[in-house]
């Protein structure tokens, strides 16, 4: 069954079999692991320099359980992945990404329609806002998740929206997280969490298009 973002605009449900789920999970995990150095470099500029390493540790633990995750129905797989991230990342991004995946899995039916995905994404983003006591405009992952989710809801490519939204965090001033300690000096650097969110969204879109 097809699952690309364009194919998902009709109301019919999307079914990912175990092989497609495996491709999806593996693509996302490897994308983050492959970009760990870049994420660390971004975090060294405005944070404490551990984002790449932390995300790599988290997604390596996801890969370690890849077979078990892929066998689960999508909502359960998302919840299990979220819990792995919570337990293994070892920084604030653990609870933030863990909450994103767990809340998304909690709201998503096993064979979601486009509307189901939009609703689940909205609920997951709300959960991340609550976890981080944050909102858009504060130079965080939310500055990518929200516009990407809105693009998807409107039938546009969420990966392109995510990429330009991550770029748009460069001139922003950090209000939340470690980068906020820098105040105006956080201006001029891309937010590492925005970048990792854009990487994840791009990987999801690519993996789903591969399974078409």
């Amino acid at each position, binding site marked *: 069954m097809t699952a690309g973002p364009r194919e998902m605009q009709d109301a019919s449900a999307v079914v990912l079999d175990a092989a497609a789920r495996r491709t999806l999970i593996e693509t996302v995990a490897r994308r983050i692991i492959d970009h760990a150095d870049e994420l660390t470099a971004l975090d060294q500029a405005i944070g*404490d320099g*551990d984002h790449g*390493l*932390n995300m790599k*540790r988290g997604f390596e633990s996801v890969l370690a359980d890849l077979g078990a995750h892929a066998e689960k129905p999508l909502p359960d797989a998302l919840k299990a992945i979220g819990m792995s991230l*919570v*337990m*293994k*990342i*070892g*920084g*604030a*991004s*653990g*609870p*933030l990404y*863990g*909450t994103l995946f767990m809340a998304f899995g909690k709201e998503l039916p096993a064979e979601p329609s486009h509307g189901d995905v939009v609703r689940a994404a909205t609920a997951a983003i709300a959960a991340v806002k609550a*976890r*981080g006591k944050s909102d858009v405009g504060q130079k965080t992952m939310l500055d990518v998740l929200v516009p990407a989710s809105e693009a998807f809801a409107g039938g546009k490519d969420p990966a392109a929206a995510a990429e330009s939204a991550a770029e748009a965090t460069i001139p922003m001033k950090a209000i939340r*997280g*470690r980068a906020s300690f820098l105040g105006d000096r956080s201006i001029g650097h891309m937010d590492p969490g925005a970048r990792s969110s854009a990487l994840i969204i791009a990987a999801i879109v690519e993996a789903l298009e591969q399974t078409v």
Partner: protein
Amino acid sequence: MNRNVGIVIVSHSVDVARGTAEMVRQMVGDEVPLAFCGGNPDGGLGTNVESIMSAIDTAWSDRGVAILVDLGGAETNSEMAIELQPQERQGLIVVCNAPIVEGAVMAATEASGGASLDEVKRTAEELSPA
């Protein structure tokens, strides 16, 4: 032992957490259930939910547990650890918005006198700028 509120110290550095716990033990004594943790799952700087959950278990008291944290990730991970606790513990664990070392000593001092969880938290938070 669990007639007093318990104290958990969560730092990015296990050395800071251990040192803070030593200060509490020396200045306040053994009347308060106390646990500390620090470091990411690989032992580097950071905090992790699993070790916070086990510290909560160690310091558990039916009167509740107050957690003292250093920087952002310690707070977020502590809140996550609280949510993952069994239902009957919900509402009995709080994160204090206070400096970690001074807050831990003040909170433990208050707890050692049999104060409630609310009183312990309030005393620690008196140290925070308004």
